């Protein structure tokens, strides 16, 4: 066997170990990005999630004004912390439509009483059907939808205070 070929297995081993170490140091991105960006919103019609606040359908969203579609739930801990940010966005004149995932009216009412209600309408999605139709995979997630009912942006996880400008910029573009 020629000289350098003898070291090939060791070289291969070093390469494999290096690849493993690299993967350990840089874990893969496990967030699921929706492929629906730029596409029209899926068809849906959601019943009211709490008495007193109406539900909504996809047809009602294409009214010429951009909106935020916010997937949340009363049992979702990060959603509680997001309340002040949503309130801030609402005060900037942005319409926020809520979609409550697998929620009960009484628990949702308590959640809104505790954290305030930044939503114009809240639809109930008890089997995550609409969430799946949006290509969303968890709560909280926020989609920016333009006035023609086209999805412009997906924000995965709670919106942090420093991420507000990025969201409002996309909403402004969508006007």
């Amino acid at each position: 066997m020629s000289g350098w070929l003898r070291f090939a297995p060791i070289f291969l081993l070093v390469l494999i170990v290096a690849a493993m170490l690299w993967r350990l140091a840089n874990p893969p991105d496990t967030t699921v990005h929706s492929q629906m960006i730029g596409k029209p919103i899926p068809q849906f019609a959601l019943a009211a999630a709490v008495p007193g606040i109406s539900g909504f359908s996809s047809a009602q969203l294409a009214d010429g004004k951009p909106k935020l579609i916010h997937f949340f739930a009363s049992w979702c801990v990060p959603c509680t912390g997001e309340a002040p940010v949503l309130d801030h966005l609402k005060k900037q004149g942005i319409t926020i439509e809520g979609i409550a995932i697998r929620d009960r009216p009484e628990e949702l009412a308590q959640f809104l009483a505790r954290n305030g209600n930044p939503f114009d309408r809240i639809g109930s999605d008890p089997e995550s059907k609409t969430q799946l139709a949006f290509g969303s995979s968890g709560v909280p997630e926020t989609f920016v939808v333009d006035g023609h009912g086209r999805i412009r942006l997906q924000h995965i996880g709670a919106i942090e205070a420093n991420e507000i400008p990025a969201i409002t910029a996309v909403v402004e573009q969508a006007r």
Partner: protein
Amino acid sequence: MIRSSFPRKRESRFSRRAWILVFARMTKRVAVIAALLFAVPTFADSDMPPAYWADRQLPNSQQEAQAQGLMQEIRCLVCQGESIADSDAELAGDMRDLVRRRIAAGEKPASIRGWLIQRYGNWISFRPPTQPVGWPLWLAPFVLLLAGGFLAASRLRRRRSQ
């Protein structure tokens, strides 16, 4: 406090106090480990019951077989290494419900897979379509077989010539 379990100060080997101390710390350790063993991981799940068709078979066995076939090839969005057929995640249950409902309504598995791919990309399916990017993977067995044959042939030739 599992850290620094033994007394730093050197005490007599037979000091009763030291033994009691060690024993006390050991029990504490065991208690902590036991607590960790029996701790329930907190999943960010609702306390709603699973969707109707999440854990229920379709009455039509042919349709159920179709649904099973598809569910075993759709990736769970939460436990990403598992299929929705295997995953205990709530969202996986909702996806099984979606698959069974659509199959019961007469939709073909390929169409449901397509619907999911449109939303989540090819990643959602464990049976990816053959694309140029996957060609090396398909060719690899033949290349390796050829290389192995070549290696074996050259070795045999050398041995015969010795």
